């Protein structure tokens, strides 16, 4: 069997990353923004796993572990914040949260 070239794995990760990024830039609903962020983080995790398996050594997997730790932490804080924002603004529109400017 020929195996999977490392570039291909990284390309998939890049594509996932770009999709998440587009979502971040376009979406106004905060829930979707957070989901886009999860996709981006997951893409980074995928890239680590690809590199780790390609080099056949475990460091990348530990990094992946850290990525999901961060993802979990960020999701919990982000969602708490979203709840609070919903209470305050009665909306999840990210564009509405723009009192600070100038």
């Amino acid at each position: 069997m020929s195996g999977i070239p490392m570039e291909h794995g990284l390309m998939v990760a890049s594509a996932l990353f770009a999709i998440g990024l587009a979502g971040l830039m376009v979406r106004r609903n905060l829930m979707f923004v957070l989901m886009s962020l999860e996709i981006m983080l997951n893409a980074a995790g995928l890239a680590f796993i690809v590199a780790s398996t390609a080099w056949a050594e475990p460091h990348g997997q530990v990094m992946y572990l850290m990525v999901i730790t961060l993802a979990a932490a960020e999701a919990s804080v982000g969602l708490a914040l979203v709840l609070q924002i919903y209470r305050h603004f009665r909306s999840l529109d990210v564009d509405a949260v723009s009192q600070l400017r100038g």
Partner: protein
Amino acid sequence: MMEMTVSLLPLTFLLPLAGTLLLAFSAGRLGERGAVWIGTGSVGLAALVTALVGADFALGNAGPQTLTLYTWIAVGEFAPSIGLRLDALSLTMLSVITGVGFLIHWFAGWYMRGEEGITRFYAYMNLFVFSMILLVLGDNLLLLFLGWEGVGLCSYLLIGYYYQNAANGAAAMKAFIVTRIGDVFLAVGLFLLFTQFGTLDIAELVTRATQAWSAGEPLAQLAALLILGGALGKSAQLPLHTWLADAMAGPTPVSALIHAATMVTAGVYLIARMHGIFELAPAVLYLVGMIGAVTLLMAGFAALAQTDIKRVLAYSTMSQIGYMFLALGVGAYSAGVFHLVTHAFFKALLFLAAGAVIVCCRHEQDIRRLGGLRRRLPLAYLSFVVGGAALAALPLVTAGFYSKDEILWQALAAEQQGLLIAGLLGSLLTGLYTLRLIVGIFHGEPKSKAAENAQPGRGPQHSVPLLVLAVLSTLLGAWLRPDLSAVFPAAPGADAHAGHTAVQLIASATAIIGILLGAWLFLTQGPKLARLAAEGAGAFFWRWWHRAFGFDGLYDRVLVRPFLGLVQSLRRDWLDAFCGLAGQLALVLHAGLSRSQNGQLRHYAIATVVGATLMVVILARA
């Protein structure tokens, strides 16, 4: 043990600085008493430190030295060190500043009683003392210039102290601008010296200059001329003298401290300190003497025709500084500084006494509306008599006699007969205007209600400073003559003695004649003089002298108005537009960029991604 006192030297300026800060940030919570205590106390302590250091210096425990505090920043070759220079000259100046300064601060507590903003007053005064000490102690041009600008600023602030009156503000502005003209010359001169010799250290600079330049070198002439410009502005000598008389708008203790005893003599100090440069420019040195001579005569005549006590004293100050410049011009630096010291004593005394009169007569300072006060204000009278005698150089018993006599003798020894004659003539004038002042205030009949009801000042705050200064203005003050032989080259008359006695006799005679003539004229011939001054040629001279030879009008016509006209006509031109362009551009860019800060999270994210794309594209090149 001996090093200990010298290491206290920084305290002399740190204490007044601390006083300034405390006063400035008390926000009026200290009250009048507290302000007076802090303001006076800090200078008093500085005077104490000065006395300690001075005692060690006099006893030979501590020689002339440079006290390097530290190096400010050392990056590459630029490593300015902050150091204090202790020698006979700086110690003399320091003693005058802290000693006389302390007495004036003390007296001001009485003078300023009940005034609004006394905290502000003392904060400025302490700041002034701080800057002045920095000026005289600094061993490098940086500190000197810092102090130089500092005293200018304080002078400005204090002249405009009663800022509610617009005229006072104008006087302050005038002083600031006129001295600033001199400061520009000075700054250019200092830059010139720095670029030539690459050091900021004064002693080093003068040494290098004497090695590199021969006497009469054009660059040396230029440097000396530029420094002279600065000195002329600060010391109110022709042609930059017009601000001093107007500066009398400030409170009288300010006039005593800044515009008589210390700041205005900074020019004398500067030339004395940089004498090495002036020695290389004999023509400029000669010019110094000439300017001094002309100023002393001009100011003498002007003093004769003033009606405001303080303006008389202001012109007299100009005239006396003229004597100092004369001394410098003939190379008798030591004599010049000696006169600086005695002048500080007796002029401070006269100003404080004038202040006492002014307060006791409810701020009446017109001679024509005073009179007959000698019984009501005996202490002020005594002070005026002693101070006036010293000013007029009454032979043998006054301090002023010894210093002025020295100057005249050195002028003769340097074979500058013209200067000698000017000095003698000035001496005659001094006697005249002094007597006119004293007679006008204290003799005859009171000419106003204020003068009739004058109440003498009481308390040690009022009396002690006057008495101490009065003592210092007599023969005793002359005994305090500093020994400056280590700092300056020998004066022209150091070895010669021929004619010294003759000069002394002639000088004494002129002074006495001046005084007697004055006494006769003003005590007995008052009405006649008044008639003389009112008509014909007399009126012309009176008005001419009263306006101090019309320099103000001249400058107004020749400089100020054309300048304003020029400004007016250039108001909207392309040059101005070009200079404003940078500001306009900044504002336009600001407005444009501010729109990027629209508060929209998504736009921020887009900007981030643009940056990221840029980074990857640039970095992932071939």
